[in-house]
């Protein structure tokens, strides 16, 4: 399992983050991202995952993140600068990570070996 800090991801482009995640997951790692991905990056990750699914080896990913929120500070609202606050995210191979329960502030998952 790799626990990836916010600082490590901070300077990466969306594609670099997605490559890091997919390479790790395809090696069988469970990744915990301290600060998660933006909704746009999550959609891109789903898209890239679909291109890499192979029928025998890689059925896809299990990803669980908490709902993100927009920055509600008055100054940002005045200047219409949306800042998405992303939250902790867990990602792993679909055949090894299974979400048992999830709500706004709790993710309960089962990790198994292949």
């Amino acid at each position, binding site marked *: 399992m790799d626990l990836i800090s916010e600082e490590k991801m901070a300077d990466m482009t969306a594609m670099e983050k997605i490559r890091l995640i997919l390479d790790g997951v395809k090696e069988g790692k469970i990744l915990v991202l301290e600060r998660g991905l933006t909704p746009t990056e*999550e959609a891109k990750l789903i898209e890239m995952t679909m291109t890499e*699914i192979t*029928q025998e080896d890689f059925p*896809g*990913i299990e990803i669980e993140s908490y709902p993100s929120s927009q920055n509600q500070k008055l100054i940002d609202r005045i200047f219409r600068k*949306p800042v998405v606050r992303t939250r902790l995210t867990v990602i792993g191979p679909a055949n090894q990570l299974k979400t048992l329960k999830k709500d706004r502030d709790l993710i309960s998952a089962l990790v198994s070996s292949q």
Partner: protein
Amino acid sequence: MGFIKKVKKNFSSIFKNLFKKKTAKIGIYGPPNAGKTTLANRIIRDWTGDAMGAVSNVPHETRRARRREGVTIQSNGSKVTLDIVDTPGLATKVDFHEFMAHGLEEEEAKRRAKEATEGIIEAVKWLDDLDGVILVMDATEDPFTQVNVTVIGNMEARKLPLLIAANKIDLPESSPARIRSAFPQHPLVPISALDGQNIDTLYEEIADHFG
């Protein structure tokens, strides 16, 4: 209606008329088997007399996005013309064994799985080209699925209107209240796309939000 409310409503409708597009493209999104095509069929049948696509209990029955142009919905004095896009169910994994569990032969299951992955890519790409989304959630399931979280996050980031259809209220274990408390910031209509329960309320909300 109070004077201020009346002025506000008139001003809002003038503003809407000034800036509204001729037709809005609305995507019907959700996880596989939430009832997206059942809902699309009902909307199209109610307002045009046609149908959109086939439905079944096997996941990923819809593997290509389908667009129906110029569907005019009238409700409560409001009228809106929409292009309705029925999208393949979004998922983060596609395992051909799942199709075999539904009785498909291995070769057919693998073909379907391949088409399903292409359909999911198509559904994600459509997000860039829409004016709003009806997110269909299965009201018998946990609302915090990744697909729901991702679609809602994307619509909020793009500042586009989103309407949640809490589907399958004909089933006794359904709980639209659970969805409402999970995503209180978005309008929600409990419906049964299958038997049409509460569908008129959905049309009112569609006319109101996408008009």
